């Protein structure tokens, strides 16, 4: 049986994991793994492989042996010269290609998660977002038929106003979506409305892009100020529809701050 040198083993393990990430995400699952994340993943995979391969003395010695030999062994002079010339050249090429100006828009490092104010002004009134509740939510238990009717009305409002951007499947892929940047929110995603209270949605719908907070600007949101087009009840009905269609439950507080 051929014994693979430790250094080669380590390189093969790292290469295998790298390829596995790409194959699994890009090919099998059909969702590319972002290069920025893959870089972070691989950094710690390499750290982990290094740890496993060096925690015993003999393994560490075996791992370093080819490198040591390359540097110290007089018989390896030719290959040493090649490696010592190739390494800085590779580093230079890497730097050059990374610094080369491109026509790509710069990558943005920002999170699109506005923090709500404690109170919000809409429809000429002031709402306390920490206590605001959907007035129709109670019918879910008290009067399921009425609730169903309200959801249906919410659906009609959605189709008439929201689906152009947010899509008829609520996945953020409406007919206008590709013309917007940032693109409309995908309500199907577990990380969007499933994490939020209904009061948060009310705030976002009623005051739209202009109602976003001052921090973390520019938001660049093209969300209309819906209090100018819909009534308060219509907004609450749309919210019922969003949760009903996606199957998510709105966030609620186990305990409110007193």
């Amino acid at each position, binding site marked *: 049986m051929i014994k693979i040198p430790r250094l080669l083993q380590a390189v093969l393990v790292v290469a295998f994991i790298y390829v596995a990430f790409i194959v699994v*995400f890009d090919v099998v*699952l059909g*969702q*590319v*793994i*972002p*290069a*920025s*994340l893959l870089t*972070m*993943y691989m950094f*710690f*995979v390499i*750290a*982990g492989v290094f*740890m*496993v391969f*060096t*925690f*015993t*003395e003999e393994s*560490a010695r075996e791992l370093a042996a080819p490198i040591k030999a390359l540097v110290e062994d007089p018989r390896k002079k030719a290959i040493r010269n090649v490696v010592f010339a190739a390494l800085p050249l590779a580093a230079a090429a890497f730097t050059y290609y990374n610094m080369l100006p491109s026509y*790509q*828009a710069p*990558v943005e*490092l*920002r*999170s*699109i*998660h*506005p*923090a*709500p*104010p*404690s109170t919000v002004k809409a429809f000429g009134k002031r709402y306390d*977002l*920490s206590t605001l509740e959907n007035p129709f939510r109670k019918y879910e238990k008290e009067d399921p038929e009425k609730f169903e009717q309200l959801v249906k009305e919410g659906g009609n409002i959605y189709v008439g106003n929201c689906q152009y951007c947010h899509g008829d499947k609520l996945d*953020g*892929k409406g007919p206008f979506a590709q013309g917007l940047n*940032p*693109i409309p929110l*995908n309500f199907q*995603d*577990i*990380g*969007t409305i*499933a*994490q939020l209270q209904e009061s*948060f949605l009310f705030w976002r719908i009623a005051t739209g892009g202009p109602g976003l907070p001052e*921090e*973390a600007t520019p938001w660049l949101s093209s969300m209309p100020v819906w209090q100018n087009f819909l009534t308060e009840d219509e907004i609450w009905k749309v919210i019922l529809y969003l949760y009903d269609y996606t199957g998510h*439950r*709105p*966030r*609620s*507080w*186990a*305990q*409110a*701050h007193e």
Partner: protein
Amino acid sequence: MTVNKTQRVRAILLLALFAWVVAAVLPGVDAGAAQAAETVAVTEASETGATAGDNNFQPAPQLSAADYPRLGSVNSRVAVWLAAQLHLWFAAFVLAVPIFVFIIEAIGMRTRDRRYDELAYEFIKVSIVAYSLTAILGGLLAISLLLFYPQLFTYLATIFKGSMFSYALLFFVESAVLYLYYYGWHWLQGGFKKWVHLTLGLILNAAGTTLMFLANAWTTFMMSPAGVDAAGVFSGDEWAAIHNFLWNPINIHRLVANVAFGGSIVGAYAAFKFLSASTREQRAHYDWMGYTANFIAVSALLPLPFAGYYLTAEIYAYSQQMGITLMGGIFAWLFIIQAVLIGALFLSANYYLWCGMGRSDGAVRYNKYVKYIAIVIIGAFLVWFTPHTLVLTNEELKSLGGPYHKYLGPLGIMPAKNTAVNLMILFTAVSFLIYRRTNKIATVAWVRSGNAVMMALFTAGILNILFLGIYHGYFTNTVYKVAASIPQVLTTLTIIVVSSVIDAFMYRGAKEVAPLHWGRIPERAQYALFLLAVAFTWLMGLMGYIRSGIRQHWHVTGVFRDNSVDAFTPTLGYAANIVSMGTILFMILVIFVFWLSQVSTRKTEVSGYWGQQTA
């Protein structure tokens, strides 16, 4: 309060502060003089009428940029930021060390093993120089606040005058007890004297912890004010202001974090000494010290994520706005750095344990398991730091059809993080259990069934953690999602406690098959200890900035607005640079402290310098 009155209160506070700093920094200072300074402060304070019974309080001042004094080109915010952070790092260290010194001393008394006593003494020796630096930096912080943010300081001092004065007094108590504890170590040995010494350690810890709790009250008041109305008018009830919404969550979090941080700094000291050791005995001693310090750091690190989660949940409960700003909004990317650093802590602590297994030849039996532990820890770590909002190039954005990733997106929210961190903690505990077994063979009759029970316990616990994380995290109401984190934590803690107890009984009277050779550990393991200390320091700096930064444009949230020219949230890069600068400064000072603790043992014999003295 009139301007005159304000200035007088400020002058008194400065005076008290000055006395406190001088007394603490110079242990040899005339105690009578310090006491006199205190008396002056007390007398003048009573003359100003600023007593607890005073209920004629003013609203929080409404300032303009011109009300904030400037000093040349000094950036006020950065000056206070760095002074506060450096003070906090040293304070955390000097408060933590006596906690585990007390425990180690007690273990030494119980086991009558002198090595523990010597180790405890060496630990406290390291912290003694750091203590003076803590006081100097505390003085620098207070003076910076007075210079750059006088109205804020005065406003806080008006509310917290009682606790601030108690703080100053308590600092005298702590200093006195600390110096007695340290300088009396070799004097108070044996029998009753040793008990007196241990009691001094207890008093020292009580004073230190109370000091921290008091300072925490002022900090948390600025985040979640209590005892004041919407305009900032103080009700006169100082306890209400102290016992504000976030006080206890911060108290718990800081107490646990301080022990972990203190352990890591002492671990770095041991690594420093190990690498510079010239004899086998020294290497063995500092290896043992490094191991003990790492054990302390890891023991406190394991419950730390839970304390952090509790604090964050309370911040959310206090203010949704604050909570979202913290973890979902503008600070979210710093949380990714935090996640990476916490992961680095777990990795370096585990690596140190794995390398340490080589101290015994018996480790060969367990080496094969390390790679599986590593796979789980690295896998959990990758989930732990996966961001919710991904950084995407335009091509990736186009290919995904939006900024949300169908498979990676769900890893960006809390249920995945909680599951991952619980697994990381559990497998770190496994590393430790394996480490403990390397040199022994259990001799009890029930070894097989004991191991089977432990295996079943871990398997059931891991399945439970996964079920709670996946089912409750993604398929139920958010209330259950948040609530599910509690049984997850309890599962982890139960497994660790029960398996440790079973293991302790199983290995009672175990046969030592291959003795531990202290000092037989690769030098690279010492760098893991350095990494642990640096990562902890950087982490504390980042999280400290975030905690303070979520107040945004408020000095005191909702009641006292910051209208200085610096009342904006800096960019992430700028903030990270300042924190990194602070970390480097702290590390330089720590190296200085390490070096100083060595200097006292050095002696230079000179000939012909001193004249001959006749008897």
